[in-house]
């Protein structure tokens, strides 16, 4: 049985999943992606963006299941 506190503990995991999708996935518009670097590691390779993880998923070892919205 899953409880609300499980969702709270897993909030950071959801944020990382979201960042991975928004910054690393989706339709790639070759040659026209423009981004400034803030507090995440960003490497520009030609015209395509390669983004390293904000934190490693290693930190999520203690994570648990999240109830889908």
């Amino acid at each position, binding site marked *: 049985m899953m409880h609300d506190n499980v969702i709270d503990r897993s909030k950071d995991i959801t944020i990382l999943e979201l960042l991975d999708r928004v910054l690393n996935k*989706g339709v790639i518009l070759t040659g026209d992606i423009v981004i400034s670097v803030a507090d995440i590691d960003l490497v520009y390779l030609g015209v395509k963006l390669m983004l390293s993880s904000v934190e490693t998923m*290693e930190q999520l*070892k203690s994570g648990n299941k999240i109830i889908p919205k």
Partner: protein
Amino acid sequence: MIYAILSVQKPPEANALLEGLTGMSGEPLQMVSVNDISAVLGDMNKADLVADKTNAIRFAGVIDQLAMHFTLLPMRYGSFMQSDDTIAAMLERNYDGFQQNLHKVENRHEFGLKIFCDSEIIMEELRARSRADERNIIHAETEIKKSIYADYVNQKLKLHRLEEMLLSYVDSVIAEIIQSLSKLNANNKIRKMVTPSNIIDAVFLLEKNKKTELVQTIEAIQSKYPGLKFVLTGPWPPYNFVDFAVT
């Protein structure tokens, strides 16, 4: 900046829906259309687009709002084009690809599943399951006992066998997931051993009305593997099921 590519059957209705939505900096959203495919965009200054957590969450919020009303393909964050004309030309050039991908994700949601392991527990499980392999290792150690390299070789041999066992174990979990989800007609993309502890990283695309079945199926699998941590997220727009780069 372009947020997403939509399938739009009735442009007047779509425009009416867009009027109630705004972009990540509060700008009004607009559409540029070619036949039944539209790009949703907001007028933003490139210099203002910083890739930080706050903006990424705002961007995802816009995509989520759009996904409530439309079948869509999310654009990667930071996709700019100069004018409506260049966007229309891009839609025309990539029309077939957009159509195929929109058709693939129609009425479907994406879910993510990451599986982590506690290495000590998992190794204990593997040893219990593979007593025969343990005996083989002992046998091999005996054979090379006289070598001056015995310690080194034995250590490497044990490590190699444990890695093989772990890979085989991960493959068996993946096979069970795929078999269990086959009844849900889900598309999947699965990577294994992403890190030593993240042994499986999977995404699924399945019909919106099958969310409960997915959760129940994953719960049932999880109950068979007490040594593994399952992290299921979603529903997401189909970020991971866009299989082409536009030109």
